[in-house]
């Protein structure tokens, strides 16, 4: 039973990756379409010529036309990409759940499982945030990022289901790791917005940069959105830190011991605390704080990959 589920899970994750790859391509098509010059005048001419179908076409044009500063543009590739992302995510979550059922515990106890769950949460956060703001322009970034991580995880980190070591047998495993992944999801979106902000502000000042930026919100709006997303991530990260300390006290006999993973979690917390202060500091708004957000997310990735795999410490649960 365990092995069957394990195989199904792997099958589902490969399928999810294939679907994400298609979504990534569709998102890229959408960005390319956004980069194309707005075909308004030519199409309007065509529409009048066609006559009877003009209204329908005009309506479609109205929805297709880039609305500057709203970011709320839609197109067939974009709708296809979003649909594919949802399908990929469903497969991804199914893979994750089957892995958990196969193991008889939460599916985040080694590097392979961490990667699978954390990326599912990242995509989940991306999809969830769409209800609040149109972040679909980040689709290529998110699906590309998740695809790379999943590829690395399945090829390099795959391990069969093994029982949970005693130290991980705690309710804190469920809470601490889940919230850390949730925080990572928000930081990922925040970093994506900050990258877009950096590009956008360069385009605003010097006019250089990819054309699709014209369909995105302006740099200031992007900065405000990034800030609000990262604030949520920061609260989750603070909770992760505290929950981790409580668990460390139970498992290792001290709540804080400057273990490598603790150090990096602390570094990330400090960087994002700096980011929040940067917004209230003259001369640090704009590109500088965006850079901090990107550096912070870089540290999150470093903590998740390099520290887990190459640094010696108590969080040695990569299973590799």
């Amino acid at each position: 039973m365990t092995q069957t589920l394990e195989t199904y899970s792997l099958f589902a994750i490969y399928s999810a990756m294939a679907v994400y790859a298609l979504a990534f391509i569709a998102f890229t098509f959408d960005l390319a379409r956004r980069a194309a010059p707005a075909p308004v005048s030519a199409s309007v001419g065509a529409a009048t010529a066609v006559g009877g179908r003009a209204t329908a076409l005009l309506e479609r044009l109205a929805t297709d036309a880039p609305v500057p500063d709203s970011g709320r543009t839609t197109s067939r590739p974009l709708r296809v990409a979003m649909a594919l992302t949802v399908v990929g995510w469903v497969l991804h979550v199914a893979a994750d759940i089957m892995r958990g059922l196969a193991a008889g515990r939460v599916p985040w106890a080694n590097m392979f499982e961490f990667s699978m769950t954390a990326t599912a949460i990242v995509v989940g956060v991306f999809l969830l945030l769409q209800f609040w703001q149109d972040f679909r322009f980040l689709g290529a970034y998110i699906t590309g990022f998740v695809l790379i991580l999943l590829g690395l995880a399945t090829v390099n980190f795959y391990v069969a289901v093994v029982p949970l070591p005693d130290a991980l047998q705690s309710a804190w495993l469920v809470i601490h790791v889940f919230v850390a992944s949730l925080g990572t999801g928000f930081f990922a979106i925040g970093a994506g917005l900050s990258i877009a902000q950096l590009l956008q502000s360069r385009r605003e000042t010097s006019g250089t940069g990819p054309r699709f930026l014209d369909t995105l919100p302006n740099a200031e709006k992007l900065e405000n959105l990034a800030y609000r997303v990262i604030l949520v991530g920061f609260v989750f990260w603070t909770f992760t830190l505290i929950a981790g300390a409580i668990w460390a006290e139970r498992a290792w006999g001290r709540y804080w011991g400057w273990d490598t993973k603790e150090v990096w979690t602390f570094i990330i917390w400090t960087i994002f605390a700096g980011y929040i202060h940067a917004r209230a500091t003259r001369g640090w708004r704009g590109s500088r704080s965006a850079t901090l957000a990107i550096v912070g997310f870089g540290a999150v990735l470093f903590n998740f990959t390099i520290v887990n795999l190459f640094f010696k410490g108590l969080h040695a649960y990569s299973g590799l």
Partner: protein
Amino acid sequence: MRTALFLLLLLAFAAIPGSLVPQVTADPNGVRAYEIQNPTLYPILDALGVFNTYGSVWFSAIYLLLFVSLIGCIIPRARHHWGALRSRPPRTPARLERMAGFSTASGQADAAAALSSATSQLKRLGYRTETFGASVSAERGYLRETGNLVFHMALVGILVAVGFGGGFGFTGQRIVVEGSKFVNAEGDYDTISPGRFVDTDDLSPFRIVVDDFEVRYEAENKNAYGQAGGYVAHVTNTLADGSTQKAQIKVNEPLEIGGTQVYLLGNGYAPTVTVRDPEGTVVWTDDVPFLPQDANLTSQGVIKVPDGLAEQVGMIGFLYPTVATLPSGALASSFPDLNDPVLSLQVYAGDLGINDGEPKSVYALNTADLTQLAGRKDALKLTPGETVDLPDGLGTIELSADIKRFVSLDVHRDPAQGWVLVFAILVLGGLLTGLFVPRRRVWVKVVETGGGDIRIEYAGLARGEDPTLDAAVADIAAKHSTALGLKVDS
């Protein structure tokens, strides 16, 4: 803010080296290994204090400066906020047009009623209101600054509590073999590191007897073959008043006793060995903790027999819980459980160097001045219950049939630990309110335009991050004007 930002980023940066090289506090053996592997770099890094990054002068300087700047920031802010908490909302600005979310509604309505309904509506929404002439000035979200201050003060609280706990707490380690006892007194610890202000003669008195230690090794799942789990130490504790109770210590479930926590952090085998002289008189017997060397619990231990035999005898032993013979002929363990245990012993004779009273590690034997009587090739081999002769007719040695286990217990006392948790929760609570409660001012002004007509003006002002201000003002305007039978002008 600039100072805080600078120090925060500096702190993040300064924390990095400690994660790159082993730390004395967390991994002393790693530091020693680093010293051997990097003989040129080590003295430089050591002089810089990198092996004790988080206790180093430069790291401490950064966080202390950060906290000084923090305190320097929160004191005036707290004073200011204290004043703000007791003051009334300020006078309504003369011109509201340029304020956020400005909107108007006009039509036939009673000016006084419009004013009083605005006041009561804002009050219901948690605003503090004040009437100035024909306008209501309202402010809410004082909790934002309160939360912000609580967050920062709680950080100071954590620092103080951590420092206090370090000074008044202690940690100690002790290896206890099944069936033996451990007393919470300085002399009974293998190692103890008390805080600066701890009187080690005055530890809370209790005694723990380890009755039994339980562990399971995975034998079914091929992918985790030999993985250990299900550690439970069954213990009997006795408190100062003589009361006794049974308890269990597990990983993730420490034992709370006398304001102290006892953690189960390690285990291994402690075979019972008895040495007899040629006449058969017992000259030495003990349970000897053997330290695990690998995942299959090949374990190493040292036996020192100072008296009773013709010479002092020292032995280096390897215990193979499930013995296997490698192609080279050397022994190894193929499974961590006691399926087929063998104890092999290399025997040395001579001066053990323990007569001069200098303390020596019980886990190491200095063989430099000793004569080897049995080496790697001709090591003595014993199975449980077996007795073999020592070389040179020195006597005999017996391995008892029942091989015991030992547990290594970590004992911690940190009187400030609870406070650290309280402050940490305050940090989180302060963060949530300080970041997500919007602080804003809202004004409702009623202007009589003649003929019984009035015009109502609505506007707001963000105090700090407030992305939903416009929506909030619009909502207030809509509700208020609708209640008066008016409509917001578009």
